């Protein structure tokens, strides 16, 4: 571990100035991912700026069914929040499906979407990785790809984003409030994460020194009927092979509106617009669910690799989406 300086800034603006003015500086919130990376040598900052104590730690009702979630709210607190459970069950379920109780107590809403891929090659500094060291090559291509992307990958990077919470946020049309050296701005959650393209070292559209201060959830009545389904290799404490966040509105056996996002399959939480489009106006039936999945997965590309690669994710995701939609449509479908 390379030695670094630590700074406790006075407020968020001070924190932003500290990081923005130093290319070797990073923010530290819950530390559930960054501390690992410090030990492994994945990141070697000169300066660590602690922000956990100064980020807003409240969930605020904005009226009309909208919420503002302070970036310092812990995953545990958010998952248990009565309004979240009532208005956005998909988000509560996603949070509770992630990590362990101890990690959820440490993890923050601001830090969670910014956690980095768990690609084993990214985390191992003895192997080439374009995300860790641009231009060094991608070790995952042709390697162990079980946990890698089937959508939106590039020849330079096939990593996936590991967050569960972010998948729900993408489906819920959340807005990310960001404080930067030039002031505040709002980034739609679905635009926060990038696809790898030829610059996989950049996970998000945030600039150096930009700090997430809150995430807003706009009113979304159909989210009251929403769910998160995570499919993984063990019953807890594992990252998603695939996951589905979905909300649907059904009237007289017809799907009138839907929000769908996928996790575990791309460099970003994958908002499934094509699936949503296919669902709108379709009967709540198995055939519709499959058609929606097929529409979204038309461009899916498995990554060949050890132990059979990850081609299984395509049928798995199709079947999981159908199961989630079936469950949500429930009695209205019959």
């Amino acid at each position, binding site marked *: 571990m390379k*030695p670094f300086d630590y700074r406790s800034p006075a407020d968020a603006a001070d924190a932003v100035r500290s990081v923005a003015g130093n290319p070797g500086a990073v923010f530290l919130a819950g530390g559930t991912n960054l501390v690992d990376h410090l030990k492994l040598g994945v990141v070697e900052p000169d300066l660590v700026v602690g922000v956990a104590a100064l980020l807003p730690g409240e969930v605020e009702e904005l009226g009309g069914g909208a919420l503002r979630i302070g970036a310092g709210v812990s995953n545990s607190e958010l998952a248990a929040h009565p309004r979240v459970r009532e208005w956005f069950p998909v988000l509560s379920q996603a949070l509770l499906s992630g990590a362990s109780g101890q990690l959820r107590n440490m993890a923050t809403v601001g830090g969670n979407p910014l956690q980095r891929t768990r690609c084993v090659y990214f985390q191992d500094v003895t192997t080439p990785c374009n995300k860790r060291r641009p231009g060094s090559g991608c070790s995952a291509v042709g390697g162990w790809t079980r946990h890698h992307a089937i959508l939106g990958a590039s020849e330079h990077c096939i990593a996936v984003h590991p967050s569960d919470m972010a998948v729900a946020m993408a489906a819920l049309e959340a807005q990310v409030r960001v404080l930067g050296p030039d002031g505040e701005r709002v980034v739609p959650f679905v635009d926060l994460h990038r696809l790898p393209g030829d610059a996989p070292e950049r996970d998000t559209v945030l600039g150096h020194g930009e700090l997430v201060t809150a995430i807003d959830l706009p009113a979304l009545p159909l989210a009251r009927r929403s769910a998160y389904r995570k499919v993984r290799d063990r019953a807890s404490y594992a990252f998603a092979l695939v996951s589905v966040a979905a909300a649907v509105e059904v009237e007289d056996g017809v799907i009138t509106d839907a929000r769908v996002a996928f996790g575990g399959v791309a460099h970003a939480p994958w908002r499934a617009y094509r699936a949503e489009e296919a669902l709108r106006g379709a009967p709540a039936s198995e055939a519709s669910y499959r058609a929606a999945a097929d529409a979204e997965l038309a461009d899916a590309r498995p990554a060949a690799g050890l132990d059979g690669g990850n081609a299984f994710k395509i049928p798995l995701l199709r079947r999981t989406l159908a199961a989630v939609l079936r469950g949500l449509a429930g009695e209205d479908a019959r």
Partner: protein
Amino acid sequence: MTLPREPEAVGLDLPRRDGPVKVLGTATYAYETALAGAAYLHPVQATVARGRVTELDTGAAEALEGVVAVLTHATAERLASTGNRELAVLQDDRVAFRGQVVAVVVADAPEVARHAAALVRVGYAQEEHDVELRADREDLYAPEKVNPDFPTDTAEGDVDAAMAAAAVSVEETYRTAMYHNNPMEPHATVALWEPAGDGFLTLWDSTQGVHSTRSALAAVFGLEEARVRVVCPYVGGGFGSKGQPHVNVVLAALAARAVPGRPVRLALTRQQMFCLAGYRTPTIQRCSLGADRDGTLTAVAIDVVELTSRIQEFAEQTGVPTRMMYASPNRRTTHRLAALDVPVPSWMRAPGECPGMFGPEVAMDELAERLGLDPVELRIRNEPDVEPGSGKPFSSRNLVGCLREGAARFGWAQRDPRPGVRRRGDWLVGTGVAASTYPVSRMSKSTATIRREGERYVAEIGAADLGTGTWTTLAQITADALGVPVARVAVRIGDTDYPVASVAGGSSGMTTWGSAVVEAARAFRARYGDEPPEGAEASGDVGPADERFAMHAFGAQFAEAHVHADTGEVRVRRLLGVFAAGRIINPRTARSQFVGGMTMGLSMALHESSVLDPRTGHVVNHDLADYHVTANADVEGIEAHWLPEHDPYVNAMGSKGIGEIGIVGTAAAVSNAVWHACGVRVRDLPITLDKVLPALERPSAGG
């Protein structure tokens, strides 16, 4: 001989004597040993799997404040013995596997050591490596023996002819994965030479055997054993990986000699444990079973292919349980190895039996299916009268009792044999069974001393408690052997200052150490009668095993598996094991051993797999986030029971070792249950959802 009185302490459900200090966090593990002025060691590891070190630039590391020493093959002392190639560290420029230690940094703080290790620049002349195990390799070879000293191959009758003539047969290939032991406490050593830099070496080491570690280290450093002391009161799990010293012990001792007067601490990181601390070889098992129409076996064969390291051989005895499990006139077992550019494989809970009862016990289920016979009944029909191969009578064999008791407790009688026809909600449900077995082993050397100290009787022996219960169970045996209340018995273990004890391996601990304690107690009573004076002392040695009998423990495991009809996720809702393992010394610690073994077997069935990337030659999922072990949420209903079994031949206590049998057969029972649930035979572990998903995709499957 047997215990001198009807057991009073033996068999009691006593809590662990070491429980309170562990719960309070005051039990001292090796790395935590309180010593002033310690230095910390961090290894530098090879980033190629085969080749030579051509350049070692340690300047930046040495220049770092707080760095005390950097050792390389050019600067480290020459070891007296390099016969154990795994322990011959920093002796030459060869790299034999990726992750091998090529230098070490010693510093005032662990963070500094780790940082400095990253600053050591190493150049290599890389050579082409080969880490791929395949059954069709042309360089497979037959080892001279398999672990520890079984014949490599056995043959009786004519298997090929019997297979050709069999009314019903099974011939399939089964695979178990590479596994890493992953105890919670990493491999950790603190080394101190006194007087400074030379003289007497003390090692506080997390080990399953203080005396065996002392022997190995004395040989490596060319010391008399009397000049080495090894201390280890508590072990945070070992599962075989601490049964033999690994390179951490040698490194700590080497480094401590290089920084005179200072103790050196080393704890491997979790990632380092995936290349420096042993593991279980993957196995490829070609299993053949032939039977008459009534299920009588006419042929049994297992042909095993597995790997070893090019620098040192370890041949897992995977085919050995097939030699004695069921009766058959025709039988063949073989082992072939591929020597690869990988770390040295080693012991992991039930070497041989654990992987070796996967293929054969799934094959038995497949045979039962083809015969239309209940798999419990098929096993009962093939009970041998005497041990196949040796022809010896069994000291006791209660496999049938375990099968019947387990079937009754599990509710097996109502089972519909058809696969893929039960559904509860979104889950397809099935049940499966497999047999377990483990030999009764006795090590040749162990001595115990018993002494009266005030109102207490103290038993001393350099035994180990890996969380298994030794602190408690040895006291129970001592109490009954002396005829005194267990509360008056104190036990001292885990130190070479106590009499010599064998390694805790092969489930031999209680048989070996307990026998020595009983002998010591007999000598004590003979010498002092019922009124021993203060300071009265006597010793006893473990005697030889009774060679007239074949001695094994047996068991039967039943599993209920659920397969999600949409996603193929596999969950085991219920595991039930019944074991026949002689007299149970302490039901509380015994249940913990059985349930722990079964849990590890469940982990093998569903989760564990070390992914060795052939391009780099290292295990890429080398942490507990990616190397999945069964976690709490995966373990639902799990029960262990045992039959009352009287066996006067195994040892004075009438006990059989129970540390390993729980992991034997579990994975087969789970695989058999998964087949029953969804109709898919998973012959290669682990049973992950991608292996059952294709069958669920077929429209007829799963209802």
